């Protein structure tokens, strides 16, 4: 059974056009969120199995689960 979908960040080497890499990720079943040209990354959603496939795509240097960020609830005097 497929695992639950997660947010992933795909980092690329810059050797291939980013859109070309994004298209290949889509074909692997990755739901592309944003293609970030300045930092050469593609964000999106997919199961663990999909992420494993993405690691084999040419031009991909890293696939990591997005850890997210926060600063605590509104109005709190203590923050991140």
């Amino acid at each position: 059974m497929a695992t639950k979908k997660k947010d992933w960040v795909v980092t690329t080497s810059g050797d291939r056009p980013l859109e070309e890499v994004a298209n290949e990720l889509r074909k692997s079943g990755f739901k592309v969120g944003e293609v970030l040209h300045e930092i050469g990354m593609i964000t999106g959603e997919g199961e663990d199995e999909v992420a494993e496939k993405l690691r084999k795509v040419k031009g991909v240097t890293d696939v990591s689960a997005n850890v997210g960020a926060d600063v605590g609830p509104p109005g709190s005097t203590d923050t991140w």
Partner: protein
Amino acid sequence: MATRKTTRTRMTKTAAADDSSRTSSSVDEMLLAALERGDDSFQTGRYLATFKEGAMDAGAKPFAAAQGMRVADARDFDNQAVAMEDVAGADAVVFPAIGVALIGGDAARSRGMTAAAEVAPDSNIASIDPEYFVFSNSVADQYFRTLDIGTGSPNPGEYLRGFLRAAETIARDLGGLAPAPASQSEEQALALGATWGLIACKVPPSSLSGSGIKVAVLDTGLDLGHPDFAGRTIVSATFVGQPVQDLHSHGTHCIGTSCGTKSPAGSTPRYGIAYRAAIYAGKVLSNSGSSVGGSVLAGMNWAIANKCDVISMSLGSQSPVQPYYTAAGQSALNNGLLMIAASGNAGAATGAPANSPTIMSVAAVDTNLIPATFSNFGKVEISGPGVNIYSSVPRPTRYGFKSGTSMATPHVAGCAALWAETAAALRGMALWNKLRQTAKPLSSPASRVGSGLVQAP
């Protein structure tokens, strides 16, 4: 994820047909509406009707019939715990246990049941009063204090202060509130005309303003209508599907420290550093204070695309080094830009993204220049003031105190903008090195405070 980019204009008032003060309205909806109509009154737009003793024993039905209202009764909910979002469609919600009914703004106004109306002597209602927003104690206290300062008019906060004191006392009795923090630093700030943080960083004597420098602050947005930011160059974008308007307060506080005005109105002390820098407010955290999908990376990408010389990030997660943050930091450096991030407040190893080697990590010190107990350690490049920091918060409160490496970071970002202004060559890694070389050495180990306390040129 949709990205919405806006250049700054004051938020325009939307159609009055959109009644934001329904019984089921969320606090966020009502706050946004109050800000849009420029309302500093603290009122939500809804009303509270207090019934005469015994008048509600018969329940909601007679009241509903008399007023021709659709009424929800708290007794219809388990333990009378009314979930406000579940009363959509009701004109009023009655709380028989306390003899009070909450009436939606439109429903009350159309029946003449507002606070200004005379209550008929034979009515079973004793009084009708506006409902007020309730804020956390420290910011509300600060708001009432600012009402006392410099206004010749009778203090409109008197009643509210009494109400708040009562609410605080009850909350404290229930064990929900910590004792109020000492306000010694605030008195100091008022006497010296600037916050302790700015003084410690030698900002007031500096002749620099951050003119010509772009500072991106990736956070919860900004109160775009805050009077202290009137006339400033502000470029904003949201990456979380909510308007840039800050309903959290963290973003407005951080932008206040890094880029706030040199001369706030009245006797408010100076709290902002790069007062002529161009402000790039990227909303990468929602109004609840969390990132949405890849919003932080989308914000970093936007800041680099806009060539923001300084990119300030008072955010993070307690996690190991993330390769993507390291790559993003490298992209910034390659473009001659500098990313600065808060080490975190877990009293543990520096979190991400500050733990990436390409991103400058900031620890927090207190007024004695001792590392704050909460301040993360290990990978730390530099320190900034991060305890009891006074800065801007969204209207109607306007100013407030916060603590955290989140507050230390914009001190470094603001000073970085001043240094960048001194020489076109001071960008990226050169700026990183300059900040470290000019920091004031501290007695604590480098793993706690890095090179020391950031100093303005």
